[in-house]
């Protein structure tokens, strides 16, 4: 069995406050945990701080998969407790670039004046440059591919015997289109998402908002629904919420989108602390 817990669902910048408490104000962070104890963490937004404080001493290895290095996906890294504990084997996996390696690019943030600790002071870290391909972490087979978002950005497909999920937190597959999506083969991210049991996908904007943010690397909720339909996913979690959207607005927007779109699969707005069973329909709980 594999469960998926959302620790941060907000996009762009943390948005704490009473008006965002239900969907949550922390930026991107998702826990994927297999029943054998293998722990993957998808992105290190501000949500990873709280996740790190709950892990307990039994966890000996953590694998953090970074989709890309925009601040809302790495800002929590420096505050992730296991990073500072040499007894925990922490592996950071993130997109390679054509110039510097991942270590060097992360060190731009994890060094003064932006952060008081140097990355080089954490020599027990394992940092892996990830390209396009597949690799295994415990029972998980991870497939990575570059997707449509400014700068080198990875999407991940994570498969295990209990099911498969895709994680596309920052993704603009509709960029440049003048109509519906092209065939799957010509759609960014399709190969990762096709047929998965669970898709976690960028749904930052309303269609109206998207019109003035084309090329910023994100999707409208409608586009996320259409992408999920094209990929024939089992379930969709809308993710990377606009920091300007309150809980009440998100409820209304998601309700309106679903009312206008006939879908064969369940959809939910990603809420901080929601826990999902990868293999079954939305067995949503919040802890």
């Amino acid at each position, binding site marked *: 069995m594999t469960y998926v817990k959302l620790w941060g669902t907000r996009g762009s910048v943390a948005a704490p406050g009473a008006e965002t408490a239900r969907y949550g104000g922390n930026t991107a962070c998702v826990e994927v945990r297999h029943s054998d104890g293998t722990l993957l963490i998808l992105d290190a937004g501000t949500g990873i701080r709280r996740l790190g404080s709950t892990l307990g001493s039994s966890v000996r290895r953590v694998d953090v998969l970074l989709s890309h290095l925009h601040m809302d996906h790495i800002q929590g890294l420096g505050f992730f407790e296991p990073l500072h504990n040499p007894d925990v084997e922490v592996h950071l996996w993130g997109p*390679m*670039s*054509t110039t510097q390696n991942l270590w060097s690019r992360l060190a731009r943030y994890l060094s003064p004046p932006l952060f008081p600790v140097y990355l080089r002071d954490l020599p027990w870290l394992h940092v892996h440059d990830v*390209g*396009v391909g597949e690799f295994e972490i415990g029972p998980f087979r991870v497939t990575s*591919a*570059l*997707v*449509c978002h400014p700068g*080198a950005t990875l999407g991940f497909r994570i498969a295990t015997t209990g099911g498969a999920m895709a994680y596309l937190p920052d993704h603009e597959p509709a*960029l*440049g*289109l*003048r109509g519906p999506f092209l*065939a*799957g*083969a*010509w*759609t*960014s991210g*399709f*190969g990762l998402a*096709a047929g998965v049991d669970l898709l976690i996908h960028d749904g930052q904007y309303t269609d109206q908002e998207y019109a003035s943010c084309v090329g910023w690397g994100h999707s409208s909720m409608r586009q996320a629904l259409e992408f999920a339909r094209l990929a024939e996913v089992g379930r969709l979690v809308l993710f990377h919420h606009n920091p300007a959207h309150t809980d009440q607005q998100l409820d209304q927007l998601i309700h309106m989108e679903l009312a206008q779109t006939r879908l064969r699969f369940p959809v939910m707005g990603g809420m901080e602390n929601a826990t999902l069973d990868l293999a079954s329909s939305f067995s949503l709980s919040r802890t």
Partner: protein
Amino acid sequence: MMSPKCIEVVLTRLLAGYLATPILVVDPAGTLVFFNEPAEMLLGKRFDETGEMPASAWSTIFSPTDSHGAPLPADELPLMAALAERRPAHRAFWIRGMDGKQRYIEVMVTPLIGLEDRNLGALASVWETQP
């Protein structure tokens, strides 16, 4: 079902869709995976009608010949040279479009090389010109 195209090729196609310059996109095997509307005018058929074309098909279907009328073998076409040698390539030559018309064209090809030195194919821009 077609295999998913990598993002670099997807974005190249989208860019080509906005350009008035005739553009052809081939994959690493030389398969013509897309050409835009301005290129349709030169090739004499719509992409919708042809779909993808393997190199063995497109390298002969357009009957490429040099300025003296001698047939050009596939490996002397700039697209194939760019793919094989991973370098920009340029050449002017005659083709016969699928509408039966002879055209003299100049072709400039840029190989598409991605992260990890992955060979992703090539992008050809094409002009009709005078011999």
